[in-house]
């Protein structure tokens, strides 16, 4: 996530800079763009969750399809293909999630009565309709997660194409789930400057890409405000186990620490949200599922926790604004 600092040639320091480099067009109060207002979390009005719960627990398994022919440009989503074509090892390792891992994850949630909001690539639903039924029969929420992990949203993608991707994802998922599909998470959290407008135009009410808050806030689009939901990034299974390459025990510890901090803050500042993202291709492996279960045991053992879907949390928050 770090901006690249490496030198790539010996003469990068021998250029000149136009004086416009010292002009600061957006140096003003608030943000340097118009998508949302500047706001400090501690200064906001406290929120109350149903039954005085301190924590809204929002568990988000992501069901992803990584095409074998994923292009290298503009960049590959985390978990994408690695070797020259055909990369059978990574293709199948990700497919493992939808064939085997997902059932371990769902069972772990069932046993602890934890609800899920399942982020679907629409291609997963089209390829494996059984998985959609597994979600809808539990009355869990279906959230749109784009088309697949190769169909990214980014500047440089033709806007008509991007619009078609948004519509394809939402229409497939709405038709197959019978749900309104109110939430959106972009593949790889990547957006173009137009993505929020395109997504909101299709009636989506909340988006989860931006990782700048621990609570919801209004996010401006051409079709009115949507709610930016705090879908935490640094505490997900792939961040800790795949990006940082830390251990399963380290994952459990950090989930517990995350919960404890948010729980303590909720005592002072009002309800908080604990979001946990799970990738079945990662956590669903036989040697890792036990760590996810241990983390979930900890969350399920706490009182004052409200297991809720993204829409339920958003509605409760909105009602108090």
């Amino acid at each position, binding site marked *: 996530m770090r901006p690249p*600092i490496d030198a790539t040639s010996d003469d990068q320091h021998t250029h000149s800079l136009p004086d416009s480099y010292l002009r600061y067009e957006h140096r003003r*109060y608030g943000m340097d*763009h118009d998508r949302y207002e500047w706001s400090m979390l501690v200064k906001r009005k406290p929120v109350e969750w149903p039954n005085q719960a301190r924590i809204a627990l929002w568990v988000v398994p992501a069901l992803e399809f990584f095409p074998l022919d994923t292009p290298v440009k503009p960049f590959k989503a985390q978990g994408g293909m690695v070797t020259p074509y055909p990369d059978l090892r990574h293709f199948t390792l990700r497919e493992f999630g939808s064939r085997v891992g997902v059932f371990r994850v769902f069972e772990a949630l069932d046993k602890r009565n934890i609800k899920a909001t399942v982020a679907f690539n629409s291609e997963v639903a089209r390829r494996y309709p059984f998985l959609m039924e597994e979600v809808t029969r539990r009355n869990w929420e279906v959230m749109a997660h784009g088309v697949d992990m190769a169909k990214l949203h980014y500047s440089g993608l033709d806007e008509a194409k991007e619009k078609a991707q948004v519509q394809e994802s939402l229409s497939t998922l709405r038709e197959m789930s019978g749900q309104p599909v109110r939430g959106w998470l972009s593949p790889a959290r990547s957006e173009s400057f137009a993505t929020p407008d395109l997504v909101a135009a299709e009636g989506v009410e909340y988006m989860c890409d931006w990782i700048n808050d621990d609570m919801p806030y209004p996010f401006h689009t051409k079709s009115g405000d949507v709610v930016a939901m705090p879908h935490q990034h640094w505490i997900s299974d792939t961040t800790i186990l795949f990006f940082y390459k830390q251990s399963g025990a380290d994952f459990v510890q950090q989930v517990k620490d995350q919960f404890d901090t948010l729980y303590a803050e909720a005592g002072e500042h009002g309800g908080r949200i604990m979001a946990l993202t799970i990738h079945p291709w990662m956590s669903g492996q036989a040697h890792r599922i036990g760590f996810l279960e241990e983390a979930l045991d900890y969350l399920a053992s706490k009182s004052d926790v409200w297991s809720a879907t993204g829409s339920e949390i958003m509605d409760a928050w909105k009602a108090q604004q």
Partner: protein
Amino acid sequence: MKSDPGLYDYLPYTQRPKIEWPNGAHIAFWVAPNVEYYELDGPSNPARQPWPKPRPDLVPYSERDFGNRVGHFRMMEAMDRCGVRGSVSLSVALCDHHPELIEECKKRDWEFFSHGIYNTRYSYNMNEAQERAILQDAIDTVQKHTGQRIAGYLAPALTHTERTMDLMAEYDFLYTCDLFHDDQPFPVNVKKGRLISVPYSLEMNDIIAYNQHFVTPRVYRDWLKLNFDRLFEEGKKSGTVMCIPLHAYAVGQAHRIAAFEEALKYITGHDKVWLATGREIAQYYYDNYYDETVAAIADHKKKYPPRVETGGGS
């Protein structure tokens, strides 16, 4: 290009004037939160791009924004509980964007020093007039918003030119945080005037620990304690400096803050620790050790003349 920047002379750790910090403290301890503003879509510098992916590169942009919206207060309150004032490494444009944050730091009598205008505007390729302009902008902006004349500098995103240190001395800065060659303050060779380096630290820097070394919050906590233990012990012979550079967007995450506070409690739970700011350490060093050290450098050079030019030949 040079093979050595020539910014300091060689004086072995074991051969220096003995440093004694105020009240017999063994160690001067300071915490430097980086309070930064990154632009979503600012101009490009030919030497470095602000973001790795096509803009809007919202994951790294928004994670940094998290620091200002959420993480800063967690970090600040942990420091409050341990009685530690911050020395803020400030993207000075943040005074315009988020004055409320500046007020919170002011209320706590924190120090502000310059970390450039934005952390997405790099010094590389600036001509002298441009580099002077950003130093003056930083001095004026911080003066206007905080009443403080800045004394310290950490170049924006640690980007420099060959003239940066000379200009800092010319603009009456007391100290630079850009050099990582020592565990004690040390004179910096500049064309005119005086400048010293105050140990900042890349090793204890939260974002380096988390995002380069990929450590867990508890391992980071242990690194901080180990670094402190050794510097405290050695400080009994001659005073040392420990700095923890922070980024609220890293250390202020809910799963990290408690482990950090444990380390801070451990450090501040010791006697003989001087809880200082960068400016206080620099001023004390000028008042008590600068001249003596300069004399010791000359003396060492006579006894052990280097056979090649080092330290800029001063």
